């Protein structure tokens, strides 16, 4: 067995120090990966976890599946392309080109999660920094509505709290303050000193308190304000708890960060679970000046009506190409049931409830295991993926290139 160093694409951490013993298509010992990453890598080498190439549930050749996908996209009147948050930048660029050629709507999961926050970071309305800068310089780590022990198991050990390599005779000691804001106790809140417990949807009130706008600012707001002002460099890691509580409206949050930035250095990093959501948002933003919810029908238009959720809700699309995403296991069943009868083409490296229900399924190579490419981590740093195995399924990139050649708008 040969040992390969790879970048784990099991979550948004993109840990680049994972060592795996690989013999042909067999995976041996894995080192440095967390339990989630190890499960992801094991699934990559498990033939039962890989989808079967098929048209309406019947096995077929790769050529037949690609031809059928091209036929469905060509005959459709209202196409939608969704997903791509776990795809490489190279795949994302081709998907944008395909959407442009087809006059399709294009959206990703940031449309109902981190999109508004990423947009503010990309337009420099909110300050950010790289995770290596956090490690070197930040002295206050504030996880807000985030629990990395569940979502990004190595975030604390590789990039933040435990990544500080300072020791005294008694052993490791924290050089920074770890704090958190959450509605419930978690493994992280137990480690945080202090941790701030707020009511569900209480984040806006806390922000008002920090801004001094609320005459009845809570004790928590005053304590948090003191804590931040005492630090030199505070990094806020924003989780989905905060995004949901603010309903994607980061205006007050932005004002708060700007206010606090007057006395200390502040940085904001979204705790994105996907491996390349920032890459998708950056690429689309460069080409259209929007991060998501775009339509290429008759030029470039943008709006909520082009979001995946609205397109499904309104039955707006008659053919959907889903790339590396599993909306059937993450969205409300009442919404997804509206997709009955819609042609769905699914490109994925794993078998999922979405591949189970798709009209055409095309298995693809696992990024970082069977294909290389580039991705952008949650902090905006570019990461090159290794390719320890050379003989897997075709890359998403290859499939999209063929579709680009074959589709007729």
């Amino acid at each position, binding site marked *: 067995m040969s040992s390969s160093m790879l970048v784990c694409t099991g979550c948004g951490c993109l840990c680049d120090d994972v060592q795996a013993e690989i013999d042909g298509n067999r995976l041996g010992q894995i080192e440095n990966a967390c339990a989630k990453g190890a499960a*992801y890598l*094991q699934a990559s080498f498990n033939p039962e976890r890989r989808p079967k190439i098929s048209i309406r549930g019947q096995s077929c050749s790769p050529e037949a599946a690609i031809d059928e996908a091209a036929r469905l996209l060509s005959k459709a009147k209202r196409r939608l392309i969704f997903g791509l948050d776990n795809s490489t930048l190279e795949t994302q660029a081709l998907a944008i080109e395909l959407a442009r050629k087809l006059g399709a709507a294009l959206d990703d999961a940031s449309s109902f999660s981190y999109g508004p926050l990423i947009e503010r970071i990309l337009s420099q309305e909110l300050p950010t920094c790289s995770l290596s800068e956090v490690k070197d310089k930040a002295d206050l780590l504030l996880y807000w509505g985030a629990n990395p022990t569940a979502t990004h198991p190595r975030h604390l050990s590789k990039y933040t709290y435990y990544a500080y390599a300072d020791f005294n005779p008694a052993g490791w000691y924290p050089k920074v303050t770890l704090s958190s804001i959450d509605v419930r106790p978690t493994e992280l809140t137990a480690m945080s000193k202090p941790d701030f417990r707020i009511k569900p949807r209480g984040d806006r009130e806390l922000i008002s308190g920090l801004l001094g706008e609320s005459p009845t600012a809570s004790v928590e707001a005053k304590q948090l304000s003191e804590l931040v002002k005492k630090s030199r460099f505070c990094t806020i890691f924003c989780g989905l708890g905060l995004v949901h509580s603010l*309903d994607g409206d980061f205006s007050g949050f932005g004002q708060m960060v700007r206010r606090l930035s007057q006395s200390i250095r502040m940085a904001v990093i979204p705790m994105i679970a996907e491996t390349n959501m920032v890459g998708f948002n950056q690429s689309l933003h460069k080409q259209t000046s929007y991060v998501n919810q775009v339509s290429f029908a008759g030029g470039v238009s943008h709006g909520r009506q082009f979001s995946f959720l609205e397109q499904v809700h309104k039955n707006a699309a008659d053919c959907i190409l889903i790339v590396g995403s599993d909306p059937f296991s993450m969205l409300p069943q009442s919404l997804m049931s509206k997709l009955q009868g819609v042609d769905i083409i699914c490109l994925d490296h794993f078998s999922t409830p979405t591949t189970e229900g798709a009209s055409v399924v095309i298995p693809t190579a696992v990024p970082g295991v069977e294909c290389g490419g580039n991705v952008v981590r949650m902090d905006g740093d570019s990461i090159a993926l290794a390719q320890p195995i050379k003989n897997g399924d075709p890359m998403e990139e290859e499939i999209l290139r063929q579709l680009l050649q074959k589709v007729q708008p």
Partner: protein
Amino acid sequence: MISPWEGISLTVVTHEDVHLSILKHRGDWDDAYQKQAAIVRLSPADIEKLRLKDNARVELASSAGSVVVTAKSDATCEAGMGLMPSSLFTNLLASYDPGSNVLPGKYIEARVMPTGKDVTPVSDLIMRRNRA
């Protein structure tokens, strides 16, 4: 005093669970998934109001649908709040709000009541789609 069978209103707060992520990677949608996902954590006060024993089954009903899960007492949970891992169970309770900008299902308004029914099988929650 209300009858526990009428149930009480609850805000279900959902959260990510690393064990469920691992089961999803493994493609394990069976018993292990059900055991990890079909749990609602309630405050001791709500457990008492509903006259439940720990690990009793409860029915959670929202405007979108209903599921039967196991109730566990959690002293860190506030009255009126239920904690559940995000899963196919919460997907069934969540409904789409066209006025919202975020993925539905983080906070779900539901009613919880004791039940004698079995925990909802995962197979009932996986959407079967007619492949066009």
